[in-house]
């Protein structure tokens, strides 16, 4: 495959990154999807929109988020110097709010009066419910019953914020099915409703728009690491479900050939068990939810259920730009198992006093794997995409602890 001059130009006008992406959408929604694309093109070039977004990101979300040198983790591993991009310190506790601020401002400009969203771990649901409270717009969140159970704290947060939670009881009862139901809602409420997509996947323009809103992560890291070290990092690591936190960190560095970039996908109980969410490692190109991407599917093109201890990574596909970056070889994607992620969760909690989300723990785990063999002047930035309070029930269960009983 020919290497392009830049890795940052995509997508093309029809929303494709190589063969990935596109607009595989039912006709009823197609005009709406074009409306969103047009509205976004206008908004991103409007200084008023840019200014308003910047205001909320700094004053409401609390950006910039710190780039923190994890000294004790670095010392323990004895190799690369590990910085953590502290997206967990954002208001609502994850990177998701970077995107919901941008999209709620867009929905407002479009005159939409109702918001719907899908959520897995509930971080996007919380970030959506939060901005809907802030801007006084009713919202409905679709969430699989499997995720409602394991992410109970986030469900309660969303309810307190005024969101209506619609439990999804079909299929795998997780993110994929929540996405199906959100699309069904959108097609049924075309006049009033804006679909606030939470990850860098789905029909164009969402993968591009969500990426653009998340690029604030990588842009800040560039400035912060220059200030701290006087040079760019050697390695970036981020976890990937749909891939929004990762593309936000990666994209501003794609053209810096010396920066090695690694995405970690959820290998669940192990690739050999078939119970995982490693779409790039074990999937094949297919079409779902409006875009072509790597998908876990059976021998007849039926979508398979993903499996991960982390609800946010429990999705059988992965955003189209990651698929392209994988095929073209610019980014390396590696599988990380539930067990490795849990180990990283405990390690970071004990060493640094930071409880990471199970999603982010997949990135930490890979950093822990490779850092010891790297020289001490090797600079690594790991995206700590969210905090782990929401995961305490899940982690407790893996330790045989019943929350509130025998702590």
């Amino acid at each position, binding site marked *: 495959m020919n290497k392009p001059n830049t890795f940052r130009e995509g997508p093309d006008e029809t929303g494709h990154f190589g063969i990935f992406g596109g*607009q*595989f*959408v039912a006709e*009823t929604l*197609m005009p709406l999807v074009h409306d969103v694309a047009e509205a976004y093109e206008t908004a991103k070039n409007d200084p008023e929109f840019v200014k308003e977004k910047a205001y909320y990101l700094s004053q409401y979300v609390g950006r910039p988020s710190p780039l923190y040198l994890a000294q004790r983790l670095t010392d323990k591993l004895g190799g690369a110097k590990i910085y953590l991009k502290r997206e967990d310190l954002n208001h609502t506790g994850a990177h998701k709010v970077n995107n919901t601020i941008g999209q709620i401002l867009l929905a407002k400009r479009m005159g939409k009066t109702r918001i719907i969203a899908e959520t897995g771990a509930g971080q996007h649901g919380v970030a959506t419910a939060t901005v809907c409270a802030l801007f006084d717009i009713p919202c409905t969140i679709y969430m699989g019953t499997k995720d409602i159970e394991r992410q109970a704290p986030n469900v309660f947060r969303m309810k307190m914020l005024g969101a209506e939670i619609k439990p999804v009881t079909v299929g795998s009862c997780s993110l994929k*099915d929540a996405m199906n139901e959100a699309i*069904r809602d959108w097609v*049924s409420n075309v006049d009033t409703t804006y679909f606030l997509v939470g990850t860098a996947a789905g029909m164009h323009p969402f993968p591009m728009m969500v990426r653009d809103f998340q690029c604030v992560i990588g842009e800040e890291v560039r400035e912060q690491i220059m200030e701290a070290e006087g040079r760019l990092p050697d390695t970036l690591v981020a976890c990937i479900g749909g891939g929004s936190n990762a593309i936000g960190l990666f994209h501003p560095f794609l053209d810096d050939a010396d920066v090695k970039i690694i995405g970690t996908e959820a290998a669940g109980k192990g690739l050999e068990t078939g119970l995982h969410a490693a779409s790039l490692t074990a999937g094949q190109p297919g079409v779902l939810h409006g875009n072509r991407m790597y998908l876990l599917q059976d021998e*007849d093109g039926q979508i398979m259920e993903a499996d991960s201890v982390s609800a946010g990574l429990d999705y059988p596909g992965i955003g189209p730009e990651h698929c392209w970056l994988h095929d073209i070889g610019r980014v390396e994607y590696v599988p990380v198992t539930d067990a490795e992620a849990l180990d990283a969760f405990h390690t970071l909690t004990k060493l640094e006093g930071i409880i990471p989300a199970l999603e982010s723990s997949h990135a930490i785990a890979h950093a822990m794997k490779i850092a010891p063999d790297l020289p001490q002047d090797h600079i690594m930035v790991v995206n700590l995409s969210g905090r782990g309070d929401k995961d305490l029930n899940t982690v407790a269960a893996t330790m045989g602890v019943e929350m509130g009983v025998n702590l």
Partner: protein
Amino acid sequence: MNAITAKSVETRLGKRFAALKAEGRAALVTFVTAGDPDAQTGLKILQGLPGAGADIIELGMPFSDPMADGPSIQASSQRALAAGMTMKQTLDQVRTFRTQDNDTPIVLMGYYNPVYFYGVEKFVADAKEAGVDGLIIVDLPPEEESELCLPALKGGINFIYLTAPTTDDKRLPRVLENASGFVYYVSITGVTGTASAAKADVDAAVSRIRRHTDLPVAVGFGITTPEGAADVASVADAAVVGSAIVNRVRDNLDEQGRAKPGLVDEVLNFTKKLADGVRKVKK
């Protein structure tokens, strides 16, 4: 490829619509999912539909994630998949059907991924050979026509486009550019089998589409009764009924989800009532 090429694709659909026009009535288009609730029962239903009055058959290709469908058709897809239905078997059923009926058009309906996974070229060739006349692929709008629409036309299969209440006059010509066989008007903004459109709205929408095309216009989504089918037949060239038929399958399963003895008859009797409704309307 231009519109003239699309219209030059001749299948059983063109012949059937021409014959019905001469007869002075609209078509009843029936949707069932291939292999619902199991391959054997599904095939019996398929083979019985023309005798019950179905003029055109839409045969659903089961998919794990039918995003544009309501609960009824979602469940039918799940039943078929649980019973082991595959794309190859769906095509085999068309082939078997054709040994007895070489006139009733069959349109395969579904989502793109199983087709893409099967391989577009191979799919078009195998479908044509099996006796398929048209394709309706919900998640392939004209923006993605190079994926399957153009290959299908090249392979002699009609590609039927959906239009919706949201498809305005500015967009319609784009949707119709490579449309052939017929135009499928989705009469509500919603998923299948959940709501019905008002007759006046359907009338206005069909007239609007006819200003843009000479293709027959079929109307579907939300037709549940013989009376509803008759209403649509009075203003459109075809009435499509899906969820209501599929619900007859659902209602005739035992506790283990297996077909009860009377299932096929129930489905076909209901189809006959729909057909009577459509046939009452003379133009």
